[in-house]
C-alpha cells in the first residue's frame, strides 16, 4: 500500500488523568495526548500539595522545622527528620553521641523498609494484584507499630531533635524488631511468589518505563530508579553519614532500568535494610541519646521543673531557639526514593534563613514523560508506582 497518501491524520485524544484519580495517589495530574491507548505525549502537572515548606521554615525556629520535615516524604518521615537534624548539626559543627547515631541508623532503615513496602504494595495493588499489595501493607503495619511504640506517632513522628533524638528506644525493641522482621520476611516470600515470578506481573513491569543510564544521570535521578539502571550511587555508601560505614550491606543494582528492575531493587533493598537494622541493634552502645549542650538540646523535664538553670535554659531555648552560626551547608541522606538533600543557609540567629530540600521524587517526576512516552495508558500505573512519588515531598 505504498501508493496511499503518506500521512493520514491521527486521531489523538487529550485525556486529563488526575489530579483526582485512583492511581495518582498524592495528587498529580497527567495531561496525556493519546492515540488510541498509546501515550504520544505526557505533560506532568505537580503542585497540588504545595504548602510553602520553604517559606514556613523561614518563619520557624530551628527545632520547629522538624515537624515540617515529617510531612515531606510522609511514608518515611524519620529519614527526613534525621536528614534535617544532621544538616543543622553539621552547620553547628557538632556530632551526636554514638548511641544516638545507631538509633538514627536503625530507625532510618525501618523507615526505608516502610517506604519501599508502601511503594511496592501500592504499585502491586494498582496493577490489580491487590492481595500482594495487602501483604506488603501488612508488613508495613508491623513496622509501623514498632515505630509508633518508639515515637508515639504513626505518621507525623518528629522523633529527631537537633543534637539527638526525642527518646531512647524501649527496652524490648530488639525483640519486637526480630519478630516483625520474621513476619515481614514471610510476607515478602509470599509476595515473591505472587508477583516477582508472576508472568502477568513481569509482562506488565519489564521493558516499561525504561530509563537509560545516561538519561538517569542527566535528569539527576537517584535512589532505586538510578540504581535500577546500574549506576551504583547510594549516599549511604558514597558519603557515609551516621554510622553507615560500620554497617555491612550491599547496594542492589539493576541492569535495564525498567520498572521490573526498580521493583526488584526495592525488594532487595528491603532485605539489606533489615540487615542494617539487625546489625545496628547488635552493635548499639549504651550511652546518652543526645548532646549534653543546653544551647542545642532542650534540658530534661526533671531539670526544667526542679532547677532555675533548667527553667532558664528551657525558656531561652524556646524563645530564642538554637543559635546557629552564619553559613551554609548541603547535607544529603539516602531517602526512600533517593538522595534527600538539605541545603540550609543560616544568617546567624534562631531561625533558618533558607531551608531548601532536594526532593528526589520531584526530580524523578521531571523525567516521567520520557519514561512513559510511547507506552500505553496502563503503563502509566506501574511506572508512576515505581517512582513512588510522595506528594508531600514532591510539592513541599
Amino acid at each position: 500500500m505504498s501508493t496511499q497518501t503518506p500521512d493520514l491524520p491521527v486521531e489523538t485524544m487529550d485525556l486529563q488523568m488526575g489530579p483526582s484519580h485512583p492511581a495518582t495517589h498524592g495528587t498529580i495530574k497527567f495531561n496525556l495526548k493519546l492515540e488510541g491507548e498509546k501515550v504520544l505525549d505526557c505533560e506532568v502537572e505537580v503542585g497540588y500539595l504545595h504548602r510553602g515548606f520553604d517559606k514556613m521554615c523561614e518563619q520557624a525556629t530551628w527545632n520547629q522545622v522538624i515537624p515540617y520535615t515529617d510531612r515531606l516524604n510522609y511514608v518515611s518521615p524519620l529519614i527526613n527528620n534525621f536528614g534535617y537534624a544532621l544538616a543543622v548539626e553539621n552547620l553547628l559543627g557538632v556530632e551526636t553521641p554514638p548511641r544516638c547515631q545507631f538509633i538514627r541508623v536503625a530507625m532510618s532503615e525501618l523507615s526505608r523498609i516502610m517506604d519501599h513496602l508502601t511503594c511496592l504494595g501500592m504499585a502491586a495493588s494498582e496493577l490489580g494484584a491487590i492481595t500482594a499489595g495487602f501483604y506488603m501493607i501488612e508488613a508495613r503495619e508491623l513496622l509501623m507499630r514498632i515505630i509508633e511504640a518508639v515515637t508515639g506517632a504513626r505518621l507525623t513522628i518528629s522523633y529527631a531533635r537537633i543534637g539527638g533524638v526525642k527518646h531512647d528506644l524501649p527496652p524490648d525493641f530488639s525483640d519486637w524488631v526480630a519478630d516483625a522482621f520474621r513476619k515481614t520476611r514471610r510476607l515478602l516470600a509470599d509476595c515473591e511468589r505472587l508477583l516477582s515470578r508472576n508472568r502477568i506481573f513481569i509482562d506488565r513491569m519489564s521493558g516499561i518505563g525504561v530509563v537509560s543510564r545516561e538519561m538517569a544521570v542527566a535528569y539527576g535521578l537517584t535512589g532505586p530508579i538510578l540504581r535500577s539502571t546500574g549506576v551504583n550511587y547510594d549516599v549511604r555508601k558514597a558519603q557515609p553519614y551516621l554510622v553507615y560505614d560500620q554497617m555491612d550491606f550491599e547496594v542492589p543494582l539493576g541492569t535495564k532500568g525498567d520498572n521490573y528492575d526498580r521493583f526488584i531493587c526495592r525488594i532487595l533493598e528491603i532485605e539489606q535494610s533489615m540487615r542494617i537494622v539487625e546489625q545496628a541493634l547488635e552493635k548499639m552502645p549504651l550511652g546518652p541519646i543526645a548532646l549534653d549542650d543546653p544551647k542545642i538540646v532542650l534540658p530534661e523535664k526533671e531539670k526544667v521543673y526542679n532547677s532555675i538553670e533548667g527553667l532558664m535554659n528551657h525558656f531561652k531555648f524556646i524563645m530564642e531557639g538554637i543559635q546557629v552560626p552564619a553559613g551554609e551547608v548541603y547535607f544529603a541522606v539516602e531517602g526512600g526514593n533517593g538522595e534527600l538533600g538539605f541545603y540550609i543557609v543560616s544568617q546567624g540567629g534562631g531561625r533558618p534563613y533558607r531551608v531548601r530540600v532536594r526532593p528526589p521524587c520531584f526530580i524523578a517526576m521531571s523525567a516521567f514523560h520520557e519514561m512513559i512516552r510511547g507506552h500505553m495508558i496502563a503503563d502509566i500505573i506501574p511506572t508512576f508506582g515505581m517512582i513512588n512519588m510522595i506528594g508531600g515531598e514532591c510539592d513541599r
Partner: protein
Amino acid sequence: MMIDIGIIAAKAFLVLFMVLNLAGVLGWIERKGSALIQDRIGANRASIFGFAGMGLVNTLIADPIKFLTKEDFIPPKGDRFLHTLAPCLALFPALVTFAVIPFGDVLVVAGREIVLQVANVNIGILYIFAMASLSVYGIVIGAWASNNKFSLLGGVRGAAQMVSYEIAMGLSVLGVLMIFGTLELQEIVRAQGGLLGGWLPAWGIFLQPVAFLLFFTAAVAETKRIPFDLPEGESELVAGYHVEYSGAKFLMFFTGEFAEIVTAGALVTTLFFGGWQVPYLMRDGFHLPWGGTLLLPHLVVVLLQVGAFAVKVIFFCWVQILLRWTLPRFRYDQVMRLGWKMLLPVALLNVVVTAVWIVLGERASLRP
C-alpha cells in the same frame, strides 16, 4: 397445558431466584473471601437493629438497600435514555443464559416427567453464545452514554476484549461439541455420565483438558474480572465503563457481573465437569465400578444431582474469586495478544487434533 406452563414458569422462577441470589451471595463471598485471603476482616458493618452477627444475610439486604437509596446520577451531557438502557442490557443476557443450562436430570412427579432445565433448545450452546455476545452492549452503550473519556476508553476496551474472547471461547467449545456430537446441553451432560475405561467419569475435562483451560480462560475474560478487568481497570480508567453509574444502575452492572460469574461457572460445570452428574450415580442409585451398588429413591437421586450441580458451580465461582484476588491485571495489548495469538491458535489446534482423534477413533471404533 396450564400445568406445563406452570412448570416452566416455576423452573424459570427457581433458576432466576437462584442465580440472582447466588450473585448477591457471591458479592458477599467475594468481599469476605478477599478479606480471608488478605488477612483482613472484610465486610462487617451491616447490621439489622444493631445485630451484625449474620454477616451474609445482613450484607445481602443492606447492599441492595444502600444501592437503591443512592442518588441516580446521570452525567449532564450524557445520554439519558442510553444511560438507563445500558445496565439493563448488561444484566439481561447474563440472566437469560441460564434458561438452557440443565441443573438436573428428569424429575418424575406423579408420572409427569419434568426436565430440570428451563428451556430445552436443540442449539443450547449456540444460544448461550448468542446471549453472551449481547452482553457487550451494556458496556459499550453505557460507556458511550456516560460522555466520559475514561468510560469511552473502557467501552472500547470492553468491546474489543469481549468480541475477541468470544471467538476463542466458541472455538474451544468446538472440541467438546465434536466429541459429544450435539449442541444440546442436556445431551452433553447425559453423555458425560458414561465411564472411561470402566472407572473414570467421561467428563469433558478428561476428554478435552486443553479445551477446558481455554474455555475457562476465555470465560473469565468474558466476565471482565481481574486479570481481564481492563474495561473497568480501576486504577487506570478509574472504573471504566461504569464510572458515571451509581445507585440501582450500578447495582445492575454489579449483579450482571456476578451473574456472569455464575454463568461461567455453570457452563464450565456443564461442559467439562459433568453438569449434574455425580460419578457412578445412575438413575436408580450408585453403581460403583468395582462392584458396589447402592440403590436410592428417585427423589434422593435427583436431589443429589441438583446438589452436585450447585456444588460444582459454587466451586467454580470460588475459583474465579480466587483468581481475581491473586493475579495482577493484563494490559490491553497483552490481553489481545493472549486472545488472538495464544488461545485462538491453540483452540484451532485442539479442534484439529480432536477431529483427527475422532476420525481415528471411529476407524478403530473406540469412540466413547
